[in-house]
């Protein structure tokens, strides 16, 4: 009994920081509809700032003053991010802000490295709560109890703020219908900024409060990000009490999971989220999302046109130039551009489901990595030749997409995104933990092309043919009735059902197709590198693909190609600098602000400017 109570308390203490961060994210999303990837970074900054403040401020008062100070400092940083980075792009297409916040993550990572150095910092014990308390014969750290109380106090304070103050009521009103709130004369711009400040403040004190327990390090941002998203989704987007209950639920399950089934810990919360979403698609305390209410829809999309003669010429020229890479680029260029082509295919496959289908998947790496592992496992255990493995890689990924998609297409919007993320994470943890089969963290080595393609140049041409073939197939598919039906389902599911189309089936099959094409990219990747590791299935990989698609421009078929090329080449170019993340992050933010329609959107804009200039001259 004592053991169970002690575990329960540990879980609740762990939940404390998680709740603080998640409630901040939830408030920000609820009002601004921005999915703030950088929220984990705010949490990390809170820990670092509090650490520094505690070096200076002594004693009991100093400790709590440092936590408050950290919250205020991070709130201020959040405010700056909102004003400088997000304000200019609120009118951009839905979820475009993701890319900007991803840039912020990179910038903060390097800034934190610059200021606080690479070593993990160990937080001071909280003055007055250094010891342990005996509860039912078990030793429980006193600070755990403080953390639990702290979370409850914050919960009550937030409840008071949102239910008893004018500002709080406005925020709740904006969560339900921000257009109406702005029609009633509320300054939406100030409201957004204030909400961002509050959300960042909460993340900051979350990071600061957990300092005596967990310290501060440079991996904190990504480590908490997934858990925070899970908590927000289980609780229901925009619901504070939901975030509290979900944080408790997840943390307590996690603590018991460690004892009962240690292998479960990496995936437990994602399984819980998947189960909740299947039964309550909008979370425990959330409300059903109305179509079209999330995010600025951006300018309406133009009808697809067939490529003009000049367009075909450009495509042919690009392929021709790629074919000349081994001649002029040397070995380095050949390897680099093989990567570029593979990522173009990966990004184009995500764009098919995301741009054309309007289904934002956060877990597309499941199919890229799925294809890579399908090929690698076949080679490893069945001695499958490369040709067959490259054929089976998309089939394996497509099969995974069939199972995952069946669940996911029942949801939409952010909930669809989160469920795809959950499934991808489940797949990752299976691969990571099933060491006997997959080699776990050590990966699978020695997956090389067949004899005839073993020369890097020959393999490059294979990648060129299959990669561009895949991209062109995706493009052609967008013009078929199947692709049109998918686009129709995005534009108006109501209309599609009213003219006899099975929207979910069409979305499901499109998901499978997109997954299979990502699998082909993964298959090509594994033979290019000769090995595969679980990183190919990671969340970060899915995010890479998202960044490429959004950076390139969602509204154009050529967007993902431009985005993948620019992103891959920039990463390669900048990774030689010490603070490359800072450079890349700033560049991404600059691109996002300067070209709200993505790189391809900027191209279209320049073309129209150019042709107008021609007419007027």
């Amino acid at each position, binding site marked *: 009994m004592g053991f169970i109570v002690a575990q329960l308390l540990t879980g609740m203490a762990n939940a404390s920081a998680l709740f603080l961060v998640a409630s901040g994210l939830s408030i920000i999303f609820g009002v601004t509809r921005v999915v703030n990837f950088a929220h984990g970074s705010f949490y990390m900054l809170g820990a670092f700032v509090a650490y520094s403040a505690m070096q200076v401020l002594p004693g009991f008062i100093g400790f709590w003053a440092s936590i408050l100070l950290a919250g205020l400092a991070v709130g201020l940083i959040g405010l700056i991010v909102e004003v400088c980075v997000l304000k200019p792009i609120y009118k951009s297409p839905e979820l475009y802000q993701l890319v900007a916040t991803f840039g912020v993550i990179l910038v903060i990572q390097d800034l934190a490295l610059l200021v606080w150095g690479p070593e993990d910092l160990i937080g001071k014990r909280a003055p007055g709560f250094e010891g342990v308390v005996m509860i039912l014969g078990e030793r429980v750290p006193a600070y755990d109890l403080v953390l639990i109380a702290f979370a409850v106090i914050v919960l009550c304070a937030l409840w008071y703020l949102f239910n008893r103050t004018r500002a709080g009521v406005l925020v709740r009103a904006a969560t339900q219908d921000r257009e109406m709130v702005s029609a009633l004369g509320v300054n939406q711009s100030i409201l957004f900024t204030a909400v961002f400040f509050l959300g960042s403040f909460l993340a900051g004190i979350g990071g600061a409060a957990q300092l005596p327990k967990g310290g501060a390090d440079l991996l904190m941002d990504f480590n908490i990000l997934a858990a925070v998203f899970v908590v927000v989704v289980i609780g229901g987007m925009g619901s504070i009490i939901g975030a509290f209950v979900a944080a408790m639920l997840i943390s307590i399950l996690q603590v018991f999971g460690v004892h009962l089934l240690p292998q479960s810990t990496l995936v437990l919360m994602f399984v819980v989220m998947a189960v909740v979403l299947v039964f309550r698609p909008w979370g425990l305390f959330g409300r059903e999302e109305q179509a079209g209410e999330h995010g600025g829809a951006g300018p309406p999309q133009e009808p*697809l046109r067939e490529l003009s003669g000049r367009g075909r010429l450009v495509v042919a020229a690009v392929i021709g130039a790629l074919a000349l890479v081994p001649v002029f680029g040397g070995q380095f260029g050949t390897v680099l551009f093989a990567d570029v082509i593979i990522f173009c295919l990966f990004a184009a496959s995500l764009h098919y489901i995301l741009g054309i289908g309007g289904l934002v998947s956060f877990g597309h790496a499941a199919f890229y990595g799925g294809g890579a592992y399908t090929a690698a496992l076949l080679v490893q255990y069945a001695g499958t030749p490369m040709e067959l493995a490259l054929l089976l890689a998309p089939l394996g990924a497509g099969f995974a997409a069939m199972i995952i998609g069946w669940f996911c297409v029942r949801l939409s919007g952010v909930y669809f995104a989160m469920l795809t993320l959950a499934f991808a994470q489940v797949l990752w943890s299976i691969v990571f933990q099933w060491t006997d089969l997959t080699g776990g963290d050590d990966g699978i080595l020695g997956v090389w092309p067949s004899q005839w393609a073993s020369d890097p140049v020959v393999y490059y041409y294979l990648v060129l043919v299959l990669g561009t073939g895949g991209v062109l197939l995706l493009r052609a598919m967008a013009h078929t009735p199947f692709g049109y*039906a998918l686009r129709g389902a995005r534009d108006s599911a109501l209309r599609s059902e009213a*003219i006899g189309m099975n929207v979910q089936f*069409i979305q499901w099959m499109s998901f499978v197709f997109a997954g299979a094409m990502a699998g082909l990219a993964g298959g090509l990747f594994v033979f290019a590198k000769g090995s595969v590791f679980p990183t190919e299935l990671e969340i970060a990989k899915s995010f890479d693909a998202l960044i490429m698609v959004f950076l390139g421009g969602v509204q154009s078929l050529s967007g993902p190609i431009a985005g993948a090329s620019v992103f891959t080449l920039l990463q390669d170019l900048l990774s030689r600098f010490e603070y490359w993340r800072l450079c890349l992050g700033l560049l991404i933010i600059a691109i996002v602000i300067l070209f709200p329609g993505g790189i391809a959107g900027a191209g279209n804009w320049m073309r129209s400017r150019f042709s107008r200039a021609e007419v007027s001259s």
Partner: protein
Amino acid sequence: MSFLQVRNLAKSFGGVQAVADVSFDLGKGELLALIGPNGAGKSTCFNLLYGNLRPDSGSVKLDGLELIGLKPRRIWRHGVGRTFQITATYGSMSVVENVQMALISDAGQSIRAYGRASNLHRDKALSLLDLVGMADQADRATNVLAYGDLKRLELAIALAHDPKLMLMDEPTAGMAPRERLALMALTANIVADRGVAVLFTEHDMDVVFEHAHRALVLNRGKLLAEGSVDEVRANAAVQEVYLGGGTTFGEGGA
């Protein structure tokens, strides 16, 4: 037996009885108006008939076939076309492509993964657009159309699979008065030519009295009156609902 037979349809949301015990018949070639003040339950009625909502009780038979429990896409396959109060069209496609999609779906080609969708059934789509007077806008982007044109496009889409019954929820809302009458005249012609049965809701009484063969009056979910437009117009209960029955204006005053 009539072509469309609706019996004892009922639906409540929480404590609100949105539709209560509604029964009516609709014959082929008949243009039946469903009218009533705001909140009378007209749109709910439509959503029940088209499978967007499931009724608490009641039956809807089309040519003897029970429609309750079928999804909208199945109901469409049984020859029912629909236009929406707030237009539902594909904004990222051209006007003609919107109609083509309905034709593609009718031909069972919506998951065909080869060939260009924009080449399929284009001629038939153009002739449907011609029918509603939209042929000159066929290749414009749908997202730039005026609202009245969107309504006409919806009519063309609804006609695509030669429906036997059309459900039109406020087909003329948002149009200029002259356009309204023109659109309903067009609809009336189509009804006469093709023998389609049409059930429509409408707020514009000019449109109703000019073209409807019969009218149903709903109030607070209940069927208040039914009959020819003249009968309905003369009905005291209907006048009370529309003009207010002395609850707001004192009777002794004037």
